[in-house]
């Protein structure tokens, strides 16, 4: 491998890790909802799209930086998630029907409404926020003059990645240390036990859906400086979230983080070495491989090691 090839590989890996960090955030929101509610939220990507439009709006109307919008879109999405859970999903849980997948189909309906509401409001145009630092980057040669290869680290990607890390750490703290967080974990682990322990499961479901939505909304704000925005973008990210969750192991938070990183790296490698258009196919290849060869996801590997078996 010559220097140029090493350069391409390293650059690809860096891009993969950065993307993976953001993917992890999307996956975490999905995993959280899946763990507590045992349903799949097919409007997940659309919620992210809503987060992105909030950030876009804030930027074009008031000049608010997308990274500041994390603190606006997060709470707004939390509220939206609560409304969806309280008035739609909870209602369906009480309806008797032949197919239990009604709840999943319901989230499809919600996603359709969100996506076309965005189309009505913003047309199907591609949009982006022209932030000042949009194309700036750190270069390896700035730090090390004699470097044989040149690597760059995009500033918005890096900042988004750091934000994702901070939010993940915050979530971890919330789940481990706060009473609400512990109740959420208890509900996810064993519904009956949680009920017996006096956890208000109904409330936890609502909070969890809000939290999952807030996470993916925040992820949307982190994506906006580096991604084009259009109303139909949600579906693609719903699938990404699902692939991450399967890859990581259903309902496992650590798994979702690792799953996000793996997927980010894999997509980045596919895009560089196979072709841009094939990155989504690579996504599904890894998804099917995970289903076939690692049904419990990365989390099952971790668990097996922990028990020494």
């Amino acid at each position, binding site marked *: 491998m010559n220097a140029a090839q090493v350069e391409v590989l390293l650059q690809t890996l860096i891009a993969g890790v950065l993307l993976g960090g953001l993917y992890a955030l999307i996956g975490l929101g999905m995993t959280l909802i899946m763990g507590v509610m045992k349903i799949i939220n097919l409007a997940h990507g659309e919620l992210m799209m809503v987060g992105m439009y909030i950030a876009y709006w804030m930027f074009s109307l008031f000049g608010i930086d997308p990274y500041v919008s994390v603190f606006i879109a997060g709470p707004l999405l939390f509220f939206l998630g609560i409304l969806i859970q309280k008035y739609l999903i909870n209602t369906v849980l009480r309806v008797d029907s*032949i197919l239990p997948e009604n709840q999943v189909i319901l989230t499809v309906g919600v996603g359709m409404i969100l996506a076309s509401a965005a189309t009505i409001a913003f047309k199907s145009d591609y949009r982006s926020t022209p932030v000042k630092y949009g194309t700036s980057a750190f270069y390896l040669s700035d730090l090390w003059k004699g470097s044989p290869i040149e690597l760059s680290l995009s500033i918005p990607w890096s900042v988004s990645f750091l934000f994702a890390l901070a939010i993940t750490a915050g979530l971890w703290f919330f789940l481990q240390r706060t009473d609400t967080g512990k109740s959420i974990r208890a509900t996810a682990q064993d519904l009956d036990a949680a009920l017996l322990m006096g956890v208000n499961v109904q409330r936890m479901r609502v909070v969890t859906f809000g939290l999952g939505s807030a996470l993916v909304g925040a992820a949307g704000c982190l994506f906006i400086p580096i991604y084009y925005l259009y109303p139909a973008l949600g579906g693609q990210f719903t699938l990404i979230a699902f692939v991450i969750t399967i890859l990581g192991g259903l309902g496992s938070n650590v798994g979702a983080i690792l799953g996000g990183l793996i997927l980010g790296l894999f997509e980045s490698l596919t895009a560089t070495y196979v072709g841009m258009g094939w990155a989504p196919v690579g996504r599904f290849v890894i998804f099917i491989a995970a289903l076939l060869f690692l049904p419990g996801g990365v989390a099952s590997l971790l668990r097996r090691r922990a028990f*020494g078996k």
Partner: protein
Amino acid sequence: MSESLLQVKNAYKFFGGLAAVTDVSFEIRKGEILALIGPNGAGKTTVFNVVNGFYKPSRGEVWFKGRNISGLKPHKICRMGMARTFQVVKPLQRMSVLDNVVASAFLRAESREKAVEIAEETLKFTGLYEDRDVISKGLPLGKRKRLEIARALATQPELLLLDESFAGLNPAELDESIGIIRRIKERGITIFIIEHHMKVIMAISDRIVVINYGQKIAEGSPEEIQANPAVVEAYLGEDHHA
């Protein structure tokens, strides 16, 4: 002594490194009623799941009719002549009582007419014939438990596994079910039963296996078990569900 129908040989079952069943061995002889008892969480249902194929034993073997069935799928084991009921009843909810039993009678019937015939006969046998058109979701618990038995019987098994078919029944239903179990035995069907009701167990079983913490702690006739100090100790602190 009559011929052995099923043998469990040194079976283990681990869940993520935790042992739910440890080195359990016993056999079931043709025509008898063998009861499996033990305190809550002792691993009784896990033993059932290992026997009927829902779980593959982590170690050890299960033999049925002279064949090693460890790792076979439940439907294959059922076809060989073993049927079971569930502790938490699993009726095919939106099907009528008759259709529930027809669905399982198809296992040994070539035509729909034949399946319906087997099903109706089974419903009469279990006293559910009057309820044949009721959607099974609407049955009271006692009858749902009996529907489980009817459904298992319609597969025409040689060995019937009953998982707490008496739990939650009122005294009248209890007597009725005991009668059904006795009549099943008279038909020559071997029965392996998990039960909490000590009175029922002592009244109907030929032999009893006791497990605690996933391990077998005793085996013998009802009289022997009642006198066994290890069993008494295992149940100490627990009420006797009598």
